[in-house]
């Protein structure tokens, strides 16, 4: 089943996908465009993987793939839902999307072995982990100024139950900008697979239900401009729509 969190007529509700639209928790069936989409899980601890696809690591001119997963954390400020608007500051010259499979943890996990890792998964969603490369610095890289900006991590639309995804390590990922395909890959090319990541993280800290792991992105990083519609899509999981907006929308000062 596909689950969402939406706002409709002033109320935040859980919802599920049905044939003719989305069904709210109170029983009403409404159109996808009639609701405000929220992140399908309220973010708590959110891990993100850097350089987890060999082709993307090469694209960023790393000669060798990392020996340990490169993990960083994101704060709740950065997440927005499906059909949201992401702010691009006017001084930025290179801002790119990253289509990523997001794994949602379903139960408390500590010292989990990779063979058992899927027992601790609740489901999957799609994330777009925007990077503003102008701000990249070599201290705790990738630093939060690149990766933890307000509105720069769209996530959703759906949390898909794990039972509905036959093999999360064999899903096509695809990004389009204004309808044109700019990034294609498959989760089969991850350096550290979902079970290995759960074993690695739970080996030194406790994972809690609702924690999210963004598993990294394949190659294909192209600059996006104000007005662009960016769609990150993962086979069987969902199609996450986002629009880039500029200072005239956000009225920064």
């Amino acid at each position, binding site marked *: 089943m596909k689950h969402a969190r939406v706002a409709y007529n002033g109320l935040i509700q859980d919802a599920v996908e049905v044939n003719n639209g989305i069904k709210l928790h109170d029983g009403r069936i409404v159109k996808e465009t009639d609701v405000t989409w929220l992140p399908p899980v309220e973010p708590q601890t959110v891990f993100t993987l850097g350089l987890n696809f060999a082709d993307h690591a090469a694209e960023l001119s790393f000669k060798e793939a990392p020996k340990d997963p490169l*993990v960083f954390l*994101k704060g709740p*400020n950065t997440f927005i839902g499906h059909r949201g608007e992401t702010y691009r500051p006017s001084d930025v010259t290179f801002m790119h999307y990253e289509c990523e499979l997001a794994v949602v943890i379903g139960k408390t996990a500590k010292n989990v072995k990779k063979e058992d890792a899927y027992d601790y998964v609740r489901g999957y969603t799609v994330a777009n982990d925007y990077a503003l490369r102008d701000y990249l610095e070599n*201290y705790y*890289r990738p630093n*939060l100024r690149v990766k*933890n900006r307000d509105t720069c991590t769209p996530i959703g639309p759906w949390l898909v139950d794990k039972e509905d995804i036959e093999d999360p390590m064999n899903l096509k990922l695809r990004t389009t900008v204004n309808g044109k395909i700019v990034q294609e890959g498959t989760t089969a090319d991850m350096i550290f697979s979902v079970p290995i990541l759960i074993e690695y993280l739970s080996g030194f*800290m*406790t994972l809690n239900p609702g924690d999210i792991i963004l598993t990294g992105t394949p190659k294909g990083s192209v600059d996006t401009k104000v007005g662009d519609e960016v769609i990150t899509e993962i086979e069987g999981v969902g199609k996450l729509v986002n629009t880039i907006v500029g200072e005239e929308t956000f009225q920064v000062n």
Partner: protein
Amino acid sequence: MKHIKFKYHGIQQLKEGSYQSETDLIEVDGKQYRTNELTFDVPLSGTIYGTALNYKGAYAKVEPFMYEEPYKAPPKAPILYIKPMNTHIGNGTFIPLPDGFEELSIGATLGVVIGKVARKVNKDNALDYVEGYTIVNDVSIPHESVYRPAYKEKARDGFCPIGPWIVNKHAITNPNELGVRVYINGELKQENNTSNLIRSVEQLLVDVTDFMTLYEGDTLLVGIPENAPIARENDSVEVEIEGIGKLVNKVINENALVGGGIK
């Protein structure tokens, strides 16, 4: 008397009271207690952001290498990281010493608790966005490099003792003039002062909220002084910040712990 907010151990709601540091007395609901008569829970619920290399002495240690690989240039923006929820523990709760390690690095730091949503704040009124201050022990597995995010060293369970309380900002005349001390088993191991911050509390709030929003209840750690003391198994660790109080936790081997207590 300073106005404080805290949580009793095992009780969900925040309590308010007052604290007198000279006598170490807490007054709450018309009754007086000594600090050691009460047990405390984590008084914070938001996201905790840490700042690296914000003490002049800590920065100076890395500075000779800043033009070399892998850094290549000095940092421009504040270097931030997150202390996630699994790390947060209250005053008096044990710090787990992970299997295979003998030493923990003790990161004594002032926690600036945000009182209202802060986005692109100005230096002149930055403290308007602050509710108060608390003490945080930003524990790590000792490590040198600041090139990659150090979550395997910094995000282990129980690696972020917090408290015992939040002191209201009006009790602190200047957050950039507070003595910071670490005692291990009662012996003074480190002494520094927030006057040695590169970015003052106000400047840090300006530079952080320039690119990300801090929400009510979030906490910004101002940084760890150089020469962080080392704690070992069974050591009692006390972080003291002038005008706020003392945060006390003991290091216990993780195999001897269940939850927050000893097996």
